[in-house]
C-alpha cells in the first residue's frame, strides 16, 4: 500500500468506530429532513406558478441531502487544530511524507466514514417511509455514483484548505464558519439551485460548490441527463485540481514559516 492510501484506510477504520455520533447524527438529520419536507410542501400548496422541480423531486432531493450531509466540507479537523495550537504541527514533518497529501488523505477518510455510517440507514428509512425515490434509470444511477466520487474529491480538497487556514488563524472557526456557510448555501443544500434567480445561475454554475450537492443529486433524479456527466465531472475535477494547487502552495508557505519561526 502506498503511504497515503494506508493513512486513508487506517483513519477510515478508526472513524467507523464512532457509531454513537452517527446514530445521533442520523436522528438529527431525520428530524431536519421532515421539517424541510414540510416547508416545501407548504410552498408547493400555495404556489400557483410553474416551478423548476416537481414536489416529488424536491422530496427526493431533500432526503439525498440529509443522507449525504456529512460528505460536505462543513467543518474543520479538530486534531489538526489541536496540533497547530500546541505548536506540535512541526512534528508532522518528521514523517517521510508530503504534508499536503497526508492531510488530504485524512480529509477523504474523514468525509467518507461518517457519510457511509449515516447514508445507509437514511436511504432505507427515507426510501420506505418518506418518499425518497430510486434513481430514474441505471444510467442516472451510474452518473450519480461518478459524480459522488467527484463530490468527495472536491469536498476533501476544500476541507484540507480550511484545515491549512488554521495555521494562520488562532481561533480557527473564523474561516471555517465562513466556508461552511458558503458551502451550505451555494451548493444547493438549503434550496436547490434551480430555484435561484436566473441572474445567479451562471455564477452558481461556475463556482465549485454545485459539484458537491446540485450536480450529483440532480443526476440521481434524472433532472440532469446522465450524458452530462463528462462535463460535470470535469468541472468537479478541475476545481479539485485548482484547489489542490493553491492549497499546496499555501501549505508550503505555512510550513516555511513554521520551520523558520519554530511553530
Amino acid at each position, binding site marked *: *500500500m*502506498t*503511504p497515503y*492510501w*494506508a*493513512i486513508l484506510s*487506517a483513519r477510515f477504520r*478508526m472513524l467507523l*468506530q464512532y457509531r454513537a455520533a452517527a446514530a445521533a447524527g442520523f436522528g438529527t438529520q431525520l428530524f431536519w429532513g421532515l421539517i424541510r419536507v414540510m416547508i416545501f410542501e407548504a410552498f408547493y400548496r400555495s404556489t400557483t406558478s410553474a416551478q423548476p422541480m416537481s414536489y416529488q423531486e424536491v422530496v427526493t432531493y431533500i432526503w439525498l441531502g440529509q443522507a449525504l450531509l456529512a460528505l460536505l466540507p462543513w467543518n474543520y479537523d479538530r486534531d489538526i487544530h489541536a496540533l497547530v495550537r500546541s505548536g*506540535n504541527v*512541526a*512534528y508532522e*514533518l*518528521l*514523517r*517521510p*511524507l*508530503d504534508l499536503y497529501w497526508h492531510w488530504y488523505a485524512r480529509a477523504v477518510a474523514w468525509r467518507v466514514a461518517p457519510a457511509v455510517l449515516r447514508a445507509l440507514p437514511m436511504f432505507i428509512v427515507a426510501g420506505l417511509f418518506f418518499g425518497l425515490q430510486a434513481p430514474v434509470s441505471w444510467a442516472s444511477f451510474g452518473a450519480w455514483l461518478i459524480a459522488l466520487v467527484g463530490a468527495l474529491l472536491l469536498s476533501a480538497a476544500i476541507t484540507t484548505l480550511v484545515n491549512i487556514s488554521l495555521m494562520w488563524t488562532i481561533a480557527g472557526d473564523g474561516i471555517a464558519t465562513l466556508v461552511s456557510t458558503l458551502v451550505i448555501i451555494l451548493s444547493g443544500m438549503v434550496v436547490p439551485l434551480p430555484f435561484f434567480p436566473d441572474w445567479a445561475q451562471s455564477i452558481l454554475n461556475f463556482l465549485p460548490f454545485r459539484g458537491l450537492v446540485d450536480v450529483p443529486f440532480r443526476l440521481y433524479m434524472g433532472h440532469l441527463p446522465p450524458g452530462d456527466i463528462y462535463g460535470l465531472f470535469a468541472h468537479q475535477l478541475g476545481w479539485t485540481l485548482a484547489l489542490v494547487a493553491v492549497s499546496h502552495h499555501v501549505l508550503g508557505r505555512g510550513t516555511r514559516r513554521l*520551520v*523558520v*519561526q*519554530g511553530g
Partner: protein
Amino acid sequence: MPQIVVDDLVKTFRVAERQPGLWGAARGLLKRRHRTVEALAGVSFGIETGELVGYIGPNGAGKSTTVKVLAGILVPDSGRCEVLGRVPWRERVANAREIGVVFGQRTQLWWDLPVIESFELLRDIYRVSPQAHLRSRDELVDMLDMEPLLDVPVRQLSLGQRMRCDLAAALLHSPPVLYLDEPTIGLDAVSKLAVRDFVRQLNRERGVTIILTTHDMDDIEALCTRIIVINEGHILSDGTLNDLRARVTTERWLIVDLAEEDGDVADPQATVISREGHRVCLRFDPDEVSAAELIGRITAGHAIRDLFVENPPIEEIIARLYGEQCR
C-alpha cells in the same frame, strides 16, 4: 567524515513581548515589541557512526532546537548541518527515512489504534517491505518484551509501556541514526532500566548512532561515552565523562561509616559535606592530599566500619559547570 556534522549553527527566535495589564494589551494591538532569543549561538560538533552521545543542558539551553534542526523540521539562520551527507531541511523526506526520533513528552503512535496497527501504518508510511518489516518488528518486540501489548490501543497503555512501543515505532524502519529526547522522563525505576538496557543494546549490537538528551544524570552515566553540554546556545564542554570531571573539578569524595553514632571526623585537608547517622561524607583534593594518606589519618583516630572513595555525582559536576559560566 563524521556521520553527523554540525558546524557553527545559529538560530534565533523572535518572541512577541506582551506588556502587562489592559493598557499594555491595547498597545500590543497597535505595536508589538519583539525580543530576540538566541537558541543556538554557533554550535559545532561532529558525531561518528556508532557513537552514543549525551546531549545535556538546562531547560531552554538549545537541546531541542538542535534536534529539530537535525530532524529537518527547523531551518537554522546560518551554519552548516549534514546528516548522512544530507542537509536535513533541504531533503526533509529523504532524511526522515534515515532517522528515528523519540520524544518522551509525546507519542508518535496513533492514539486510537492498537499498537500493531500503528506499526503496520508505519510500515506503509516508510515503505518498508513486508518481510523486512516482520523481521524488524519481531526483533524489537522480543528485545522490548512487548508481545502482550500489541493488541492494546495506545491510549490504554501505561507510560512505561507506551515508551517501549514508541521506541519500537521509531526503529521499525531500521534507521542508522536515532534521536532520543528525554526518553525516561516520568518513568518508574523498572521501566527506566528497561529503556536504558534497550538503548545500550541497540548501540552496541546494531551500531545505531544515538543522540540522547536528558535531565536524568543516571541515564548519562549508564549509557554515554561522550557528553556534550550546552547552555544558552553555547557548547560548554564536549568529551568523555572523565574529561568533564577533570575540567570542572578534580575533587573526590570519601565516605566513611563510623562504628559509633554522631562521631566527629575532622581533618585539616578535607571538608565535611554531610553527616547523617553513622555516615560522614568528606571532600578532598587529590593533588593536595592522597586518598591513602587521608584514610590512614582517619582510621588512626576513629573506629571505622566501612569506607570508600568516589567521584562527585555528575549532577554536581554539571551544576558547577553551569555555575562557572554564570559567573
